[in-house]
C-alpha cells in the first residue's frame, strides 16, 4: 500500500500542476482548491511554496470523527471516502490536525486519497508515492 509524500517541496516552482491534475482527474473539476493537494506560498513568492497534503494518519482522526461513515480508515493509513454518504457536516476537516481537508462553499470535503495521479504532473519530482514503511527518514 502506497501513500503520497512531498519530500522535495523546496524544488516547487508554484505552477499548481499537481492540484489542477488532482481536481481534473480525481474530482472532475477545474480548480486549485477542490483537490487533495493544494499549494500555498509561505509569505509571498519571495519565499518557498508549501503543500498541505494528507499525511495518511493511522488511525485517521478524520475517519473517526465522521458521523456517517463517509470517511473510513484506509488500510495502512489515510481514508477511503464515499461522497454519497457525506452530510457536509465538516467534522472531518475540524478533526484533521494538519489542515489537509478542504471544504468548498457547499461544505463538500476534499482530501487526498493517495492515488498518485498528481505525481507525473510535477515537473520537479517534489511528490512521490512510497510504500508505507519504506519512507526515507
Amino acid at each position: 500500500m502506497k501513500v503520497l509524500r512531498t519530500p522535495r517541496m523546496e524544488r516547487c516552482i508554484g505552477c499548481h500542476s499537481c492540484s489542477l491534475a488532482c481536481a481534473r482527474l480525481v474530482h472532475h473539476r477545474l480548480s486549485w482548491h477542490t483537490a487533495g493537494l493544494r499549494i500555498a506560498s509561505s509569505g509571498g513568492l519571495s519565499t518557498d511554496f508549501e503543500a498541505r497534503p494528507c499525511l495518511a494518519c493511522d488511525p485517521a482522526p478524520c475517519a473517526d470523527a465522521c458521523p456517517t461513515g463517509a470517511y473510513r480508515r484506509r488500510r495502512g493509513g489515510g481514508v477511503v471516502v464515499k461522497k454519497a454518504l457525506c452530510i457536509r457536516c465538516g467534522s472531518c476537516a475540524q478533526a484533521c490536525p494538519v489542515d489537509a481537508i478542504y471544504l468548498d462553499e457547499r461544505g463538500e470535503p476534499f482530501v487526498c486519497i493517495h492515488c498518485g495521479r498528481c505525481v507525473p504532473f510535477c515537473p520537479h519530482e517534489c511528490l512521490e508515492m512510497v510504500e508505507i514503511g519504506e519512507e526515507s527518514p
Partner: protein
Amino acid sequence: MIRDHFRVLVVDLETGRGSLASVPGRDDVAGGSGLAALLFRRYGFPDRPWDDPAQPVIFAIGPLTGYFPLMSKTVCGFMSPYHGQYAESHAGGRSALALRFADLDALVIAGRAPTLSCLVVGARSLRVRDVAFMRGMDVLASGKLLRRMFPGSGHRSILRIGPAGERGAATACINVETYRHFGRLGCGGALGAKNLKAVVILGDGDFSLPEGKAYPALFREVHEQLTATDMMSKYHNIGTPVNVTVLNELSALPCRNLQRTREEHIGGIAGERFARDTLLRNRACAGCPVGCIHIGFVREMFQQENQWVYRQVAYDHEPIFATGSMLGVGDAFQVLGILDAVERVGLDVISAGVGLAWATEATEKGLISESETIVPLRFGDAAAYRQAVEHLGRGSNEFYRLLSDGTAKAAKAYGGERFACVLGQEMAGYATGETFFVSQALGFRHSHLDSAGYAYDQKDVEKDARRAADFLVEEERTRVLLTSMVACLFARGVYTGPVLARCLDSLGYGTLAARLPDLARDVQALRWSLRAATGFDPDTVEIPKRFTEVRTWRGKVDEAYLGELRREYTARIRALMTRPA
C-alpha cells in the same frame, strides 16, 4: 466556466460598486486580446484623453485559460498615457488563473476612486478599500502589506503599482506577484490615474469539467509535448538571458545607447554568468510547468561587521539589456541592483534603462548636466544609475518627470532626439536590423513580441520589403490568435492552429474552433481599428537617426531598404485599420 458569452465584472471606482455584464461575442473574438478590444469598444471613449476617469482599464483572459498548460497570461487593454491611444500589455503570474477561478472572463475598471484604493474581486467578493496610507509606498513593501491585508496565499493574485504609477507616469508598470509585470506603454500610470494602488483577485471558485475522456486525454498530450521534449529547455534552463551572448556575438546587442551593437567583454552579464553566480531558483506562472521565471539575488552590507540584507530580483534578457549593455554596466550583480531599484518604484524596465542611456549620452554631449540628472551619469556607473532610477520613478524634478513620460518627450525638450532609442516606445533588446526597427516602430504594441521582426532579420538576406511586410502581418495574425486564448508565447510551437482548435473542441467550443483563421483576421482588424480610432497615424512615427547610424551584423543599416519596408508595412497597417471588423 464554459459559456457562449463573456461574464464581465464592470466596476465603478467612484461608487465602489459594480455590475456583472453578459457580453456576447465569444465566437467572434474568443477572449484575451480580442475580448479586451471588444470591451474597449463597448466601455471605452476613443475621443477622450487617457486619464479621463471614464476610460476603462480592462483585464481579460481567454477560453483556454486554466484548462490547458501555459494558458497562463492575462491581457490588459487601456488608453495609454504613453501615446494617448489604445494599447495592450500582457503579464503572467497568477492573475489569469485567479480571474478564471473568480469566474470572470474580464474585469473592467472604470471611474476614479475618491482616495487611493485597492480593489478586491473574487467569485464572491467585490470591495473597494481605502489604502491612502500606502501613498508613495514602493512595490515590494506594498506587496507585503497587501498579502497581510487580503489572505488567500497561493490562490490569489496581487497587482500593484509603485510611486511611478501613482503619479501617472507614462512608463509605469503594473507589478504582478512581485516577479511579473504588465510592463509597457504605461498601464501602471493608467491605474494611478484611477487612484488605484492595487487589484487583488481572489481565485476562490471552481467548475465542473466536460464529461468524457477527450479533455483529460488531450490535456495529457499537450502537457507531454510541452514538458517531455527539449522545446522549453531554453526557457527554464538559462532562460531568455541566453540571448545576451548570442546577440552580442552576432553584433546585434544594443550597447551604450545603441552607439554600438557589440561589447568586447560581455561575459559579466551573459546569461550563463547569471545562472552560475546569481540564480537562486526558478518560479512559474500558475498553470505552467515550465518555470521560466529566473530569480537572482542582490545583497548589501548596510552596516559594518558583516550586517547584510539580501533581496531577490527576477531577471530576463530584456531587463539585462536595458540596465546592462545599454548602460555599459558589465557585472551581473550590478545589473540586479539596478533592476531592484526599478522594481521598487514600479517602472517599465526597458523604458527606464533606455531612457537613462539616452540621458547619459545627452550628458556626454553637454545637452544636460547634474542640474537635470541630480547625480552624474556615466556609462558603467551602476551606483549612479540606482539613484537615478529612484529619481525617475518618483519624478524628483521636471527633467525626470518628463523622462519618465518617455525618452522622446525628454529629448524634444532638451535636445538629442537623433539618439533617442525610441521605436514607438523605448526599443527592445534587439539591434538585428531594418525589419525589427520597422516592426517595433509601427507594430500594434510597439513590442518585439508583436511580430518577431528580430527573427526575420536573422533569416532574411534578400531585402525583399514586400515579403518582409507580409511576414510581419502574418506573424501578428498568428500571435493574436494565441493572445486571444490566452497562451504564453513561449508555447507557440505547440499551440498551432489545429491544436488550438482541438483544445477548444474538447471543451465544447466547437463553433469557435471551426472559425479560428477568420477569427484571427477579425481580431487583428478590430485591434487596429481601435488604434485608428484613438489617433494612430503610422506616418507620424519617427525612427530616430541613431537607428540608421548604427552598424549591425548586417553591416550599416540600409536606409533605403528601411524606408521601403516602412512604406510597405504602413500600407498593410492602413488596410488593417480600415478593414471592417
